[in-house]
């Protein structure tokens, strides 16, 4: 057991630090917001060093580095420290690009991979539908081949980033007579056309992280399909070989814990700081047990992933751990907030008495529920752990139709 990254990696860290020191912020000027061109140039330079676009082949503008979870972690740490931009975030780089690299035609890779990894084009994901949540394969959006084009009709939901996406990668039922999973194709669609109607989905918190997308006679060329007709389900399940971020979820839990600790120190009840209340101290320490466990679980996974070994059941627990911790933290927050629990987190635009810094915790209190449902409901996670982790059978209700 060795919690340092080791000599080879610490040298790599030094190299990264040197690079960042020389290149970010551009011109060493911390008081100016970098231009788009400067950011592009920086990313190209970082790619040349092998720091960005690591899983992308050189022919598509990448640095084509072997997967290395630990180099990945070091890069995240150092870039974050220097506040330097990494690969453009988003579902395009995270999901579409690895899928294309694995299953796409050469022309598809050439056309879409470079601009996506450069951040020139943005993607959204068209998977979930109102009637198809955990049972995704029951999706109903239909695509019909008319001449040289697919004509697509249907509705997608929980589509984040749809408002400023250029393209959607989308699961569409193209073979209505095939069995459930075998009737789906994976299509790429231009968002910028009539018939694409994006409507933000307002959350109970007031914000809108997701959208509904209504597709009415939307068109896309015949060959904008990844994999063959009816292979869409498999294409969408392709194991992604890019560097995992095993400790991302745990890092968020840690950050949340630091936040609640601060809240306990900065709020009072009955004239006494909450942090001095023995029942609050007990709850904090109990939560910290979960948070540290989550954190060390991340390290375990990172270690195994770096060795290309299966981390086992622990890997299936990340989401449920995050959700459970988020619930505990949020409930404690509501107790710490006292009267501030009466406040509306949804808007700061209207004039109101006493805007409270703690108001964001109300959002967190509600948002912790969103986490539970966004990553598939907790029940789905429990199914996965029970079935794949403990070797228990599939749901009989599900079996009846699946």
């Amino acid at each position, binding site marked *: 057991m060795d919690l340092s990254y080791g000599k080879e990696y610490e040298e790599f860290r030094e190299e990264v630090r040197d690079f960042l020191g020389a290149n970010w912020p551009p011109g060493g000027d911390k008081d100016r917001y970098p231009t788009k061109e400067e950011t592009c140039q920086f990313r190209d330079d970082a790619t040349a060093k092998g720091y960005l676009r690591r899983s992308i082949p050189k022919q598509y503008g990448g640095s084509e580095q072997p997967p290395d979870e630990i180099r990945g972690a070091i890069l995240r740490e150092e870039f974050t420290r220097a506040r330097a931009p990494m690969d453009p975030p988003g579902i395009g780089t995270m999901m579409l690009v690895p899928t294309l690299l694995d299953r796409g035609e050469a022309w598809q890779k050439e056309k879409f991979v470079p601009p996506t990894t450069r951040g020139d084009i943005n993607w959204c994901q068209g998977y*979930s539908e109102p*009637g198809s*949540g*955990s*049972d995704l394969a*029951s999706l109903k959006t239909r695509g019909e081949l008319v001449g040289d084009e697919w004509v697509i009709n249907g509705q997608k*939901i*929980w589509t984040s980033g749809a408002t400023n996406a250029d393209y959607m990668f989308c699961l569409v039922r193209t073979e209505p007579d095939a069995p459930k999973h075998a009737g789906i194709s994976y299509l790429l669609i231009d968002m910028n056309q009539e018939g694409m109607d994006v409507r933000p*989905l*307002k*959350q*109970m918190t*007031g914000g809108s992280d997701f959208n509904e997308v209504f597709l009415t006679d939307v068109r896309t060329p015949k060959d904008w399909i990844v994999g063959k007709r009816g292979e869409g389900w498999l294409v969408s399940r392709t194991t992604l070989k890019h560097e995992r971020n095993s400790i991302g979820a745990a890092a968020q839990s840690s950050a949340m814990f630091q936040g609640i600790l601060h809240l306990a120190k900065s709020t*009072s*009840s*009955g*004239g006494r700081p909450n942090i001095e209340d023995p*029942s609050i101290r007990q709850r904090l320490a109990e939560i910290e047990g979960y948070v540290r466990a989550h954190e060390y679980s991340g390290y375990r996974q990172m270690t195994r992933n770096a060795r290309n070994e299966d981390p086992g059941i622990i890997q299936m627990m990340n989401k449920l751990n995050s959700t459970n911790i988020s*619930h505990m933290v949020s409930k404690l927050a*509501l*107790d710490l*907030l*006292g*009267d*501030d*629990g*009466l*406040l*509306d*987190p949804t*808007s700061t635009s*209207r*004039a*109101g*008495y*006493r805007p409270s810094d703690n108001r964001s915790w*109300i959002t967190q209190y*509600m948002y912790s*529920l*969103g986490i*539970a*449902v*966004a990553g598939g*409901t*907790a*029940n789905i996670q*429990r199914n996965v752990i029970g079935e794949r982790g403990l070797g228990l059978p599939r*749901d009989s*209700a*599900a079996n*009846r*139709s*699946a």
Partner: protein
Amino acid sequence: MNFDISEEQELLQDTIRQFMANECPTTHLREVFESETGFDATLWKGMAELGLVGLHLDDEYGGAGLEIIDLALVAESLGYGGAPGPFLGHVLAGLAIQLAGSDAQKQTWLPSLATGDAIGTVALGEVGGGWQPEEWTLAAGSTLSGVKLNVPYASIAEVIVVGVEGGGLVLVEKGASGVEIQPIEGVDRARRIDAVTFESTPCEALPEGAAQSGRVRDAALVLLAADAFGSGSRLVDMSVAYAKTREQFGVTIEHFQAVKHQLANMAVELEPSRGLFWYAAHAFDHVQDESQRAAALAKAHISDRVMQIARDSVEAHGGIGFTWECDVQLWFKRSMFNRAFLGTPSVHRERAAQMGGW
């Protein structure tokens, strides 16, 4: 032994439920939610015509002379219906004047409060959670200065009953000088709250204020518990109904044992607690030795349980439960109000511990 409500009381609850379904379906509730004032005069008039807003006031002032249990059953039904508006503060103001006021004060205010023609409210909370009479700090003589927070619908109230130093109560009339009302952006837009600043504002003491303010607080706790119970019932009903319609894997999700057990757990957390607010309400009028503690336990327990039920309801609805469009959010936020207003569960649990001599 009769631990049950009467047929008349059941009828009253049915009437309110029907009234709310007709006059305030959730489409309408959402309009009030979005409105500037959160007050719907027509709905208020309808409630007043049903006699809901002066139920507890003496006959001679135009009330129905009923008890806190009746008022609590109204609150439960309004909670179930998600009723927006100033009911809570209004009935407490009437109660305060009836319990603590002089004959002249009663003559002046109760008749119009009983009909709902005048709206009243109570200003109890202060900065840093000072909700309890012994925590009130505003000095009052013939005038009043200081700040009260979380005052329901202060902006439309004809009269505000204000808690002051020593646990006393004073009346401030609409339009009195030196009153400044600022809306607070509250989480429950069906029950608006304001911050009220008084600066040398003329006021009039309720003679029995210091003796009765604890009773007013207890009644408020009972009404919040009752509203929370009604809200919890609505949330359970919505979740069960959703499980019966939402299909996944070719069956409605009610067929999944995990869903069934989650719904059963929600019902088990809620249903037994009904007796807590019944008893606390009953004790208010009939077992005064126990009423203070019973009110504290009822409010702590029910508002806490229902908050968890609201969270469970969101999960029971899946992704859609987290949206603005889904009605769960309306009662989720109502539950947050019921939980925090007048002090969180831990405050009242500690009070119950002290009153229990622990």
